[in-house]
């Protein structure tokens, strides 16, 4: 391992790499999300026909995956590095592979496997075809050609590349557990996040109040609908994201049945679909005005 292969340096290197490939460097969204896809820099920006290349770290919250800091590979919160290239270049797979080489991964000494993984985010009405990328059996990236978002067929196909940063760092640093990852030369990932994992695991699985969360869900949903009716996309979408997170919490708490689950997903999806339609409608109006002015 290279001496400077710290968690933070890995993030910096990837960001620099994608910056050179023409991506705008962006930052995480300011509200809890389950994946970088929820960030408007992905979900909203992939809808229209304008080129869009972006790279950002997203803090992903997956309440169900908490393990009270006892599993070396699973946590209720981790970092993703999200890359969107719209349209995807024809050599995008190689560009991606070279990003791994840029991190110091030698292809002759590892197996890098693209494992069929059709991706869908039912709460976002989004799906795509692609792969999980496995490095020696460990999933380090989700690589997807989006086909639909917000229930809308995308006119320009974006590629989404989502790196699981902890997992890549774990392989690069060759440590048995993510908690042992060197964040910098003084502190480990465990130093930073162990207590966070233990406490949130307990909260998510044992303490979260289902009634409180359910009422929040209902209120957020109502607010989102109202805002959409007022013609505002992004604030309405903000509440859509909040609904999705509340849903994840309720699911972790184990209080939703399989069929009720399908319904709640449908309710969030309806909001996401509304956001997407409204965004496209407003933007085509805007485009028309702009072209009139010209």
């Amino acid at each position, binding site marked *: 391992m290279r001496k400077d292969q710290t968690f933070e340096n890995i993030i910096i290197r990837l960001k620099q790499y994608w910056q050179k490939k023409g991506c705008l460097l962006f930052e995480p969204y300011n509200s809890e999300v389950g994946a970088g896809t929820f960030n408007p820099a992905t979900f909203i920006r992939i809808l229209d026909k304008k080129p869009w290349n972006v790279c950002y770290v997203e803090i992903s919250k997956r309440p169900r995956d908490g393990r009270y800091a006892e599993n070396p590979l699973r946590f209720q919160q981790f970092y993703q590095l999200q890359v969107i290239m719209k349209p995807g270049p024809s050599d995008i797979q190689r560009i991606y592979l070279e990003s791994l080489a840029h991190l110091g991964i030698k292809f002759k000494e590892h197996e890098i496997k693209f494992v069929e993984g059709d991706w869908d985010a039912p709460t976002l009405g989004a799906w795509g075809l692609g792969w999980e990328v496995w490095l020696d059996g460990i999933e380090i990236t989700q690589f997807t050609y989006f086909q639909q978002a917000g229930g809308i067929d995308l006119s320009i*196909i974006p590629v989404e590349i989502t790196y699981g940063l902890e997992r890549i760092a774990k392989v690069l640093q060759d440590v048995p557990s993510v908690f042992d990852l060197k964040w910098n030369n003084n502190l480990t990932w465990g130093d930073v996040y162990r207590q966070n994992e233990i406490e949130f695991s307990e909260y998510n699985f044992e303490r979260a109040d289902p009634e409180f969360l359910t009422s929040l869900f209902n209120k957020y949903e109502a607010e989102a609908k109202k805002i959409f009716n007022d013609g505002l996309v992004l604030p309405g979408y903000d509440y859509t994201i909040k609904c999705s997170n509340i849903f994840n919490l309720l699911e972790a708490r184990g209080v939703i049945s399989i069929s009720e689950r399908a319904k709640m997903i449908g309710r969030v999806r309806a909001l996401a679909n509304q956001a997407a339609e409204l965004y496209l409608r407003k933007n085509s109006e805007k485009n028309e005005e702009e072209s009139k002015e010209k």
Partner: protein
Amino acid sequence: MIDFLLEIGFEEFPPSLLKKTAEDLSVKVGKLLVDERIFYRSIRTIYTSRRFGALVLGLTRKQKPQIIEIHGPPKKLAFDNNGEPTEMLRGFMKANNLKATQIFTKKIKEGEYACGHKEIAGVNTEDILCEEVPKIIKSLEFPKTMVWTKGGFRFPRPIRWIVALLDRKPLRFKLAGVKADRYSSPNQHFSFKPIRLQKPREYLILLRHGGVVADPNERRKIILKRIKKAAEKIEGKLLYTDEMIEEINSTVEYPEVVTGEFENQYLDLPDEVLMAVLKVQGDLIWVKGTNKFICIFNGKKKAVQNVKKGYTHVVAAKLYDAYYYYKNDLKQGLQSMLEQTKKMMWLKDLGSLYDKAARLNRLVEMFKTVPELDLDVLKRSAMLCKADLLSQMVREKDFTFLQGIMGGHYAEIGGEDKQVATAIKEHYLPKFIGDTIPKTKEGSVLSVVDKIDNVVGAFLSGNRPSGSYDPFGVRRNAYAVVNVLDTCSINILLFEVIDNLLEMYNKDFDKNIISEFFIERFTRYLQNKKFRYDEIKAVLATWKGDVTDARIRCEALKKLRGKPDFTKLVIGQKRVRNILKDIKRIGVVNEELLKEEAEKKLYKKGLVTKSKIKELFQNRDYFKILNLLLTMRVDIDKFFDDVMVMCDDKTLRNNRLALVNYINSLFSQYADLSQIVIEGESQQE
């Protein structure tokens, strides 16, 4: 002689589609060559995870020339009175380079014409391939495709290169924005540098240098050899199937092998769980009874240590999870999970999962007369069958498919009767069309009632399927119900089960909607059993709800419909239906009012037949019943020929109608034969 190489390169193809698609492609290429009269010596299918194609050796450069008949002027205009060629014919001869001796006359549809044979030189193979190969690629069919580039070309994964090399020359065509050329791609673990191909014959060897075993058969052999070699050092049984090997073969270009292991404590897990973990972590092959697994990977031998470390690690993490769930679940026990199901909503306004289990527990009492069935076992398994949905194992998405299986394990370890455990394990079967059916009576009845309840519940909660909307898989559930009832010969009236369920729910709902839905699914089931639509319609028109019974009736009908009497009988039944259609009140036959010989005879025949078939119905000997009914045909025909049913005398008329109705009732005990379509009639579906 020349050679041809076609290789379509893409980003990793879905393994389950690869072999079939590659084979389709080479079959189509072979067929094209045959159809186009291009000779070839051999054709070889190639595929790896990143490419498929065909290597064709020994082609002819051109199509074989073709001799076709061409038609000149009509005979009348082709020859003058002396039989000499006219100006017109000479023009035709000149244009086609024909001598007078080569001209013959022939009658074709339009009349008699002067004709000749003409040889058409073969077109260059190259031109044909340029034209047809892109069409072949476009004609490949897939269950799921994607778009990745402008123009909207669809394929399972993005096409990134095409090699189409005819001898030393690339074919000129473009597809999905990719130009056909002579550059292939090596295994990316070996190099990124494209492989330049001079000619098709060097393909396999140059690819091999680039870390690609392009011939799938050769690769399969290497895989099996490596697995066996790795297993030599381990004492245990290799657990793999041909499908697993094919799956592995479709995900690698250059197979290497490594053995990994996990901690012995995980051998406490049920085999199903261990195998599920190894499967999802990359088609790893378990050496049963040991803590070892064999992993085929794609890449270089140099990677062995890292690959071993990586896979060992993910397997350990996954097994850790599984073990953690398993121990927690065992600690908690199925009974306590059952208590928790009281808080788990099943469907909105339809109560909890516990309520569902309790409902099934009551409902199964209807089945107590089913032979070889232990009602106590059935009732207990009904009560417990949904409890494992609250187990941690089943709530984890990679293991959700073990629902039922885990419940069975937890039941058995928790001290329940072994039969109860088996019924719980089996009750989700069949999960898809063609899946296994439960083997035990208790398992199959539980499977049936659970699924009927799913269907009824979906209807009651406003989730009936329409179009592609079927979030609860109601269609699949209903299909499975009739499938299990039939396959396991469980004689129960489906409609009674539905009635009972609706009563338990105590909801106001039109039960005919649900019955109709089951009839529709049952129709589909019988169609899949190769019964014709009209046979099914005839039987289901008078159906009481016993699935097996209906299927046997269809079988007898199918066997007998070829008989000459049968068609006449059906015509008779159609007449009967028409006669009775508008009659509202029909009395019973008064024997004294029967005047004509034919009607007396028919009535007598009816009485005899009725008494004969009564016993046969109890034994479900539908073949004999239908045969007996067929023997009435002569008397029925005679009756219609000789007797005027709609006569003026009202008393006589009513009595004759009563007779017609009486005879008809004998038939409708079996089926509504008037539904059968006979030749000349159009069949409606």
